[in-house]
């Protein structure tokens, strides 16, 4: 499993390679980021605040600037909330709803104060309207990441189905 638990020194581990693959838009310059972020809205959050609620049909893409948030899924027959993941600076959240427009599958709650940048599909459209080439690269890279994750999920299911 490419988890980063066994990043032996001086060994180019599968984990760090895998993580590098998931980097979003790794080659964008500061200027290109600035153009994108001009269309994003900064959103501060407070400890305990629910930033995304499962089932909501709100579809913006979010990038954590600082602070930490936990991701909860409903699991099991009683729909208990299970903490599944936590995100901090640089994490990209919500790309699925951003792309497919379906209701949110997870609840995201802040465990510290912090800030995130929020990009609604409308804001993205405006960005891409001004900079079509950047918009194309943005979508292509997001699609690449979603596809990679689908591959990894498939692999994980194969493992669990063993």
């Amino acid at each position: 499993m490419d988890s980063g638990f066994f990043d032996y020194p001086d060994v180019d581990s599968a984990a760090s390679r895998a993580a590098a693959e998931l980097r979003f838009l790794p080659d964008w310059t500061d200027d290109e980021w600035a153009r994108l972020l001009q269309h994003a809205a900064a959103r501060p959050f407070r400890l305990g605040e629910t930033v995304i609620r499962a089932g909501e049909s709100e579809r913006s893409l979010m990038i954590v600037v600082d602070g930490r948030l936990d991701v909860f899924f409903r699991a099991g027959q009683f729909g208990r909330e299970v903490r599944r993941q936590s995100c901090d600076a640089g994490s990209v959240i919500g790309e699925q709803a951003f792309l497919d427009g379906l209701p949110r599958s997870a609840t995201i709650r802040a465990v510290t104060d912090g800030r995130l940048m929020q990009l609604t599909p409308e804001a993205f459209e405006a960005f891409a309207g001004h900079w079509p080439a950047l918009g194309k690269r943005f979508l292509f890279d997001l699609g690449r990441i979603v596809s990679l994750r689908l591959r990894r999920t498939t692999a994980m299911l194969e493992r669990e189905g063993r």
Partner: protein
Amino acid sequence: MAGATVPGAFPNYLQLRERGWLPARLWPVLRVASVAAAVATVALLVLVPDLGLKFCWGLAVPVLPALFFVAPGLWRNVCPLAALNQLPRTAGFTRAGRPPEWLLRHGYLVAVGGLLVAVSARKWLFNDSATATAALIVAAMLLAFTGGVLFRGKSGWCSLVCPVLPVERLYNETPFVRVANRHCDPCVGCTKNCYDFNPLAANLSDAYDDDATWAGYRRLLAAIFPGFLIAYFGLSEPTAIGLGAWHLAFALHLAASAGIFFAVATLVRMPPGRLPAIFAVVALNIFYWYVTPLWLANLATLVGVVAPSWLAWLLRAGLLAASVLWLWRGVRKERAFVGRLAEGEGSRLTAGATAALGRAAAGGQEVVFQPQDRRVAVEAGRSLLEIAEANRLPLEAGCRMGMCGADPVLIVAGMEHLPPRGDDENATLARIGLAGNPQARLACMCRVRGPVTVSLAPGSATGGAAAPAAADAGAAAPRSTTARADATVRALVVVGNGIAGVTAADHARRLHPDCEIHLVGAERHPLYNRMAITRLIYGRSAMAGLALNPESWCEERRITAWLNTSVHAVAPTSRTLVLGTGETLAYDRLVLATGATCLIPPIPGFGIAGSYGLRDADEAMAIREFVQKKACRRAVVAGGGLLGLETAYALHKLGLRVTVLERGPWLLRRQLDARAAALLASYLHGLGIEILFQTEVAALVCDDRVRVATLKSGEDLACEVFVVCAGIVPQVELACRLGLAVGRGIRVDSRMATRDAAIFAAGDCAEFDGEIPGLWPTAVEQGRVAGANAVGGDEIYVPQAPCTALKVAGIDVASFGRIDAGEGETEVVREDEATRRYRKFVLREGRLAGAILIGCPEWSLGVQRALKGGRDLGALAGQLAGDDPAVFG
């Protein structure tokens, strides 16, 4: 999560060492002692075989599983075999080779094989043979040492093929006592998922490994382990049933155990780490169930300490309790582990991008929206309306200039961080009954300069829309305070309940407290925001939110509203109107505010299903309905003016492919110059809206509905929805019947009076000084003048420079007054290519005469005020090319 640091729940040995509880110097001493103890045991076995066997198998070995269970790291550090294995590395004579690939992958099987053979052989060999046992120990020591000479790290023995390793790893996932690896300095990455490297993650990493064989070996050992121990302790002695039969029975036990394991795994869904953990503790309890009394007995014979008989029970029960605790900890750890794996699945930014992000988010003003309790941080200079829209908060919009009143809000805190209310805003707030509330604002006019808390539900907050309208009646006081109501006016009729008509009725009532006022409108809806009707095409909330006045508005003002009623005919001599229903309405004064309709050029085919003009709400909703019913994909909009572009954008948002046809060489010719229009066109093009210049439609090709638009150039465009936005035609029929002077519109003087002194006209139907601006603010101002004058007032209409904003999301386009410098005028132009911003100011005698703003919303309020105020900007002209909108104060 990647990178060398995996903090938190899964520290590696280097991170664990920081909290080491034994001084590092002590470990070599302990190792020497343990090797010495091993040598002593061998000596004992050789010299005093009985005692040696009892000590070795009866006392020492049975303690080891408990040690693996409680403090596995301790044993990994002091095991005599490990000490010998690491000697060549410490002393520097190891060859440090890499074990062959097959051994790295299948070493676990070798180790398990060694374990099974060695343990089962105890039954028929080692338990009774001191010599064989001594030989076993010596052989193991030699092998461990040789492995250390040949292979790097601990891969020569400890971490790859040592037969005890699989047992250690069954129990080492949640040690009660953590001891960091003290052998490896530095780590050379000798084996996969090394326990010594990351003790807490090693087992689970195996269980979740991508390599099914790798993970399977480990499950297999857990599966057979309880059966293995039952066989070992439960079967009769091999001597009693024969070695062959014994081995067969032994194998059947393993098979049965594995069978149960895999049956449970199939029937009960569990995360991969759980069942092996359960089987491992079951095996451990089986082991100590048998061993505890024997061990206590051996202790008695060897040391002479006789334990009380309940002690065995106590120890077994203690182990059981510890096992439950251990399992529970394992469950929690697996959850944390899966969480970490999932984190590895998340996409992230590079460090550089994260830094850019930090810069972008820094230094904003915090705005809090209630009742959602949504906080946002924004650049100073943005309006509350823009901020709400960017964050998808429910707020309507229309003019974006404080004229329509679509976006009232209450400022809960931070009013001092907003510009003060201006005249237009006050007048609009007065119309919607909020001027008396000092907290009320129009969101489009509130450009934030500091932290603000806003309530988006002005009706629900204290003193909100519920405040009696009467309190506002005088808020926007008529300009001539001496005006007196004309007592001879008993009945006023206003025809048209658009903004001009409603404003006229409003101001008539303010001045004249008791005349009858009738407001007759042909449309089905009370006053709504005509400027926002394109939202009805793409939005899902239909008319909700489009109304501009509270429902009780007419009633509170004692105005009789006639909706869905048109005025048909007139009887001028008796001052009576005939309604479409046949009813009649007598008036002393009449205000005509009949507005305008779309200009429809003669286009063959126009009028067939799918062709539209767009002026009122019902037309907009009809377009949306048609697009859904016929599943339309292609639309053509004729006209590249404000209305045409807003319509094109609405159809685009509804999912259609849209082409805009513009007769002239650029878009918005009345509002923009060529350069600004090019910026706009490039944006619209980027959105996917096609724009064709210098073309016109020649004809529509239809069957039962529109199919193709043929251009004058001969080109054919696929077209299912065709919307004409080519300008307006004032509605003057009624005026003609009344015998009033009519040009393009109803001719009025500066008091908004027509040729008949009892009849006034205002808004899009009125022509003053040869002009029909067709704009909302004009309709408001003319309505105010006409309404007041109709009941005795003495107001004068002074034309204002036109202010317009394009309502297309993602680009701020605003135009004010003059857009090109003429005789005696100068221009200041500033363009920033990289950010697509454009500003142009036209100055006449040092005063602002007009402006074009693209992408500079923070300038528009100042420009609006400078245009109205007519302040001399002569000295500031130099700063107009700068970046600070504060030039306008």
